[in-house]
């Protein structure tokens, strides 16, 4: 079995994996980082979004071996200690989540949006989130949360590429 090593949430990790193992499976099963979810098998729901080398990626669409040597950030790596990332804070403040299942992917996607577009309009947010499905919120409060999160990130000088 091939061995992979990568940095996950700032920590060096490595492990032996089946060549067909997906990155999301490696994160969830090997590293027990279960905040990254699996909501589909056709790469459409976005519940599995993580950052690989700073950009949002659907971790169900990447083999673990493809992430060899990469730096991966999952939802568990977003907060500083117990202080949530401004985007996480905004989701809570704006009630941008209900069941929480799509939420990690939404937050990871939204943070990447703000990295490339620090002040996105409603239409830009809705367009960007085309790859993230939420069945609970009707997206209304997610849009509010992303707008609010972007403002918080700008205020903290976090809007530039993470």
């Amino acid at each position, binding site marked *: 079995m091939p061995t992979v090593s990568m940095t996950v949430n700032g920590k060096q990790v490595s492990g032996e994996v089946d060549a067909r193992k997906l990155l999301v499976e490696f994160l969830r099963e090997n590293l027990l980082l279960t905040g990254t979810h699996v909501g589909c098998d056709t790469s459409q729901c976005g519940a599995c979004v993580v950052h690989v080398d700073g950009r949002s990626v659907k971790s169900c669409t990447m083999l673990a071996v493809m992430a060899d040597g990469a730096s991966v950030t999952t939802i568990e790596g977003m907060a500083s200690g117990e202080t949530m990332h401004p985007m996480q804070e905004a989701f809570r403040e704006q009630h941008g*989540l209900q069941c929480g299942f799509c939420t990690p992917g939404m937050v990871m996607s939204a943070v990447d949006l703000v990295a490339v577009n620090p002040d996105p309009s409603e239409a830009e947010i809705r367009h960007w989130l085309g790859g993230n499905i939420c*069945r609970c919120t009707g997206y209304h409060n997610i849009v509010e949360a992303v707008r609010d999160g972007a403002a918080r990130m700008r205020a903290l000088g976090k809007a530039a590429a993470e």
Partner: protein
Amino acid sequence: MSNVTGIGVSVKRKEDKRFLMGRGNYTDDIARPGMTHGYILRSPHAHAKINAIDTTEAEKAPGVVAIFTGKDMAADGVGSVPCGWLITQKDGSPMNEPAHPPLVVDRVRHVGDQVALIVAESLAQAKDAAELIEIDYEEMPATVGVASAATGPLVHDEVAGNLCYDWEIGDAAAVAEAFSKAHHITKIDVTNNRLIPNAMEPRAYIGEFDKGTGEYTLYTTSQNPHVIRLLMGAFVLNIPEHKLRVVAPDVGGGFGSKIFHYAEEAIVTWAAPKVGRPIKWTAERSESFMSDAHGRDHVSHAELALAEDGTFLGFKVETTANMGAYLSTFATSVPTYLYATLLAGVYKTPAIHCNVKSYFTNTVPVDAYRGAGRPEATYLIERIVDKAAREMGLDRVEIRRKNFIPIDAFPYQTPVALQYDSGNYFATLDRAEDMADVAGFPARKAEAAKRGKLRGLGYSTYVEACGIAPSAVVGSLGARAGLFESAVVRVHPTGGVTIFTGSHSHGQGHETTFAQLVSETLGIPLENVEISHGDTNKVPFGMGTYGSRSLAVGGEALMKAMNKVVEKARKIAAHVLETAVEDVDFKDGVFTVAGTDKAMPFAQVALTAYVPHNFPHDQLEPGLEEQAFYDPMNFTYPGGCHICEVEVDPDTGVTQVVGMTAVDDVGNVVNPMIVHGQIHGGLAQGIGQALLEECVYDESGQIVTGSYMDYAMPRADAFPSFKVDNCVTECTHNSLGVKGCGEVGAIGSPPSVINAVLDALLDVGVTDISMPATPAKVWAAIQGAKTAQAAE
């Protein structure tokens, strides 16, 4: 009391931080020691006989622990997956209720039917082994659509004409009489499109058996763990309830689809002791499409009799409903008691009759999905009301106002069994018209026309019955369960409180809303309250969450239990403060004695309860913990008005929702932020049904829309921002005056969308369109109308 965390405040949710930090605990996140992985091999055919199953090669595959088929389960005496609601037919006979084996024995009846369980060390190995199983299928012709079910091939040999039941409600003679006096009769045929619920968390189960204690545990993505324990333990697996623990941890959305007892729950629980290790099964999304209970799927013909001035005289409806291949837990109640009893809508129509025939087909079982029956009723009524107005040249708003149940007519007894306790449909209509800026619509329409777009406005005024339900009522109608709710309030010695509720949150925010009730009632801070739910070994027997019942039924149970706590605490305070119980007041978390400065905060009473050094033990028990069960007197009746504004591009048929206003009367509101969130989600599902979503089967019974590539799940760009507000008439039979908000969005909105589309298409001559109004359908309707006009 100006309690900043009490009733009426948009408190931010207590549960959010763990979800936002990736610390949720969903079933698939759980790894049990020694856990194996299960894969369910499913039927690729809609209907086939199984001549033989050969697992020899598969059993030798790497990592395989065991393989089970329906024969193994049958040999073990495993029962049929039960249906929870008996419908009595018109002629007095019981409905047809064919067996539903968890793993089929010799015949598959829908694509996705469970054929075998493969247990292996890893999921990949289980899937590899499944490829090696040889099954000799003999394909049979399938019955697919409900319209042809009566004459199609038999799904169950013993069920003639595929008929599950033929049922009616209302007074046919009174309706005939009304129709004989009608000035005008409007007729309509509508299909309520079949939907796939698609909670974002796929179903997942872990079955486990403890050899030492003989206890089974099932971790499940369920909305109601006790219901699963009862159905699976008592009817399928014969496990006594004290030896069966069912845990529903964090659950990622349900929308009805996680109410039901599913075959896979029984399969992994049954197989766990056989392999001697826990077994986890998690649905892949493609499996969800072919095994989660679907929703809706009704075809109806309706006729409305009107007087010359537009007064409704009588309403008659014939509906056929699709049950799918087997009866899911509450399938039979959806097109009957949750649908036909709502056919009065918000109108004082004096005579109503409805005949419902439900059929088996070779499709996935159909059951409750957000709204369950009430969206189907609302859609039918609100479509025919618009059509009647148009045919008679009456204003569509005026015809509604004219027929609304008047404000002073409550409690209002409908001709179809329900008694609405309260409502004010005028108020919600007025407020919605205001918020939607109906007055400015003509200008917006003219502006859109300049851009070549057709703009339309659509209304829906609705009522629904939720807060499900009085046990006595549903029992008399065939429900095989009570529908009460339970709560335990455990006050800890240092004043913290744990609430054990039979309700279950899968996104609704009970950990916050219920904590607000506690904070308000006991006067303690939110952070001193913990809500525990979802574990049958912890919480008292409860019925779970569906039918917008958590606050109206579960919240009331909690209030009842808290009142008992306050009464007990009052006795303790009276004892310590050396006064009569009647003289002790309780306010803002402090017990006081009238006319004195004696006072005792709640936390001190709690401590005393557990340090009862000088209690008169013949009069006062130690401890501070109370339990209550609450069974409601009636359903609750939220109602309101939804106004949708759309823009149709006549060249492409694309419909864009440009405005969606919802004013709902859900009774008193505990947390407006959460309530509005629930309504947003419901609206999205309603708009999704109206414009995007449909489960399509081909003639052979294959699901054409079996993934997110084909099933049009609404994305963020399908919607505008919503305008949402509430008007309040209080529920008259619960102490909180609450009604329920979980389903109103999905119930009220679909007809408002379609009525808006038809309003937009009025000028081009289109008079009918079916859900979902996809671009292709809208474009074809426009072309059809043009051709028809050219031919005239």
